[in-house]
């Protein structure tokens, strides 16, 4: 994520224009943040269709609530809050139908190919385990893992986006990783019992 003065000013300018009803300004924001929005959502909802839908809906919300945007605040954290909320809604809705089973094909479909064929099988199994565990994490844990690992943001970036102190980012990450470790180990024990 690039962050320099001029880009922030660009955002502010675009939001200012959008407030005055210029839809064209929104397209500038969309071009700049569409991938961010999609991948942020993907890490949280774990499904391409939902992630795509969330990202588009998020831009619609930007258009609809542009008036409530505070010009003195940076755009991205505000936008992120919208994305995260939409993700939370998707997960809430899904909770009732989700069997919490992760299909290995589903994971494979989402992930970029990397590694050689012989390492791939093992890696895929590990990634599947990670994804299955991710699904069982509470939202806040899932969120911080997503930002740090999948979006590769620094603690400072995460702190500014979530509006929490840096130390909280660190301790939250610790608890999230530990919970993930526990869930993955549990998965392993289940697999061994099956064999």
């Amino acid at each position, binding site marked *: 994520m690039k962050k320099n003065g001029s880009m922030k000013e660009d955002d502010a300018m675009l939001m200012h224009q959008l407030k005055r009803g210029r839809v064209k300004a929104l397209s500038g924001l969309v071009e700049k943040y569409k991938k961010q929005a999609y991948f942020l959502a993907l890490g949280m909802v774990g499904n391409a269709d939902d992630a795509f839908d969330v990202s588009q809906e998020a831009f619609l919300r930007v258009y609809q*609530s542009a008036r409530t945007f505070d010009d003195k605040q940076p755009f991205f954290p505000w936008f992120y809050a919208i994305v995260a*909320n939409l993700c939370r809604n998707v997960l809430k809705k899904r909770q009732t139908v989700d069997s919490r089973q992760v299909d290995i094909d589903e994971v494979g*479909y989402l992930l970029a190919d990397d590694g050689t064929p012989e390492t791939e099988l093992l890696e895929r199994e590990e990634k599947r385990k990670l994804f299955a565990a991710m699904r069982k994490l509470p939202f806040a844990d899932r969120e911080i893992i997503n930002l740090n690992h999948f979006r590769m943001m620094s603690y400072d970036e995460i702190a500014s986006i979530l509006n929490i102190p840096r130390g909280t980012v660190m301790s939250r990450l*610790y608890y999230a990783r530990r919970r993930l470790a526990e869930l993955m180990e549990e998965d392993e024990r289940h697999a061994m019992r099956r064999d």
Partner: protein
Amino acid sequence: MQCDEIKELLAGYQDGELDGAQTAQVREHLAGCEACRTELGRLNKVKEVASKVQYKDLPLEVWEGYWQGVYRRIERGLGWIFASLGAVILLCFGLFHLVRDFFLRPEISIFAKLGVAGLIIGGAFLLVSLIRERMFAYHRERYREVQR
């Protein structure tokens, strides 16, 4: 330092996000504490697997048509607003005529007219109050959505 305090720093230690003094503290503690070393090993495994995860990008056409998709959503939203506005106007217009005809007819007793007038005024009050309540709830939700 206690294990609990060290553990809160472990993620930062893994990610190189500690300052020099903190790093030294953690290192020193780890050298003498088997439990925390084991804990770090577990966390490292998670970090390692997670670092390998890379999501596949969507096809270029999808990104190229992306703005169109957002725009359609905006249009659809505006479409709904105008359509419902039109429907409300038509409904009010129709009701107005119906009511006016009713009151202008001389053969209908004054009591029936008073009754209907009461009904209309009461209904209007209820409607306004209901709308106000809904709008209030909506604003609150909006606020919660953006404020975190």
